[in-house]
């Protein structure tokens, strides 16, 4: 059954009200889980049009619905057993329509990983 709920607030079981804007603003507006090895490919996503494999451990996520500005918040993660870090590449590569991410292994060199995830929160255009 299709329907529409319009509400300014949501009440918790404990009787506390929260504004629905908390839910809307606090939700990831784009996310992706992809395989960064072999011929890279997304496993699942929301609001992602494509991935660009730039080089080893260097990828770009291209959005379908651009963000309103480039001051959004993005988090990168990836699998590793050796102290890997997933990072945003730079401020310059955080654009409204795409975000570049890097993954590293146990050294300072970029490396490819089987599970790379990006979650982005912010205002949509």
């Amino acid at each position: 059954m299709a329907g529409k709920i319009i509400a300014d607030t949501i009440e918790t079981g404990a009787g506390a009200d929260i504004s629905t804007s908390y839910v809307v603003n606090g939700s990831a507006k784009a996310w992706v889980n992809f395989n960064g090895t072999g011929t890279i490919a997304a496993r699942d996503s929301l609001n992602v049009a494509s991935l660009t494999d730039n080089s080893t451990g260097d990828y770009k996520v291209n959005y379908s619905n651009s963000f309103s500005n480039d001051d959004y918040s993005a988090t990168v993660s990836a699998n590793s057993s050796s102290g890997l870090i997933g990072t945003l590449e730079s401020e310059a590569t955080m654009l409204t329509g795409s975000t570049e991410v890097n993954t590293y292994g146990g050294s300072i060199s970029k490396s490819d990983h089987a599970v790379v995830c990006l979650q982005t929160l912010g205002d949509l255009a």
Partner: protein
Amino acid sequence: MQTPDFKGTHLWDRLCWAKENLEAYQSDYRVVYEDSIDECAKILVPDPNWMACALQGGILPPVWVYHELAKDEAQPDFKKHTRGYLLHETEPVGAMTEEEAIEYLIMKDCPQSVWQDWDSGNRPKMVICRKEQLPQTREWRNAWRISSEIAA
């Protein structure tokens, strides 16, 4: 499944509808391109949920909308998009074939300098291929280039 009449519906809401109702489509097409002589070849990979939207039709905005937003963002005094309504209020494009979807994606997510004159140099700057045609391991990934033997 019939796409609802999405004209004027926020693109985000259309994408959420597609995510819930359409089967993701994993394309075998890949786009290999070079946009800098100092860098290795890059590979554009379509997203399966996006491909489902493209094949379904009535969800995605025309590609020129993205070009307009990119022009705005390139302005030195850019702070935030003020023409985001173009994404939501422009009539969505109809169903595309897989090949048409790849062409759309090239114009959306590859640099214009690549796709506008991809075959004007001594060798092509861009090649559309199947994923089986790419190297199966990422050995020497940072040295991958488009072969000069590939005919345009």
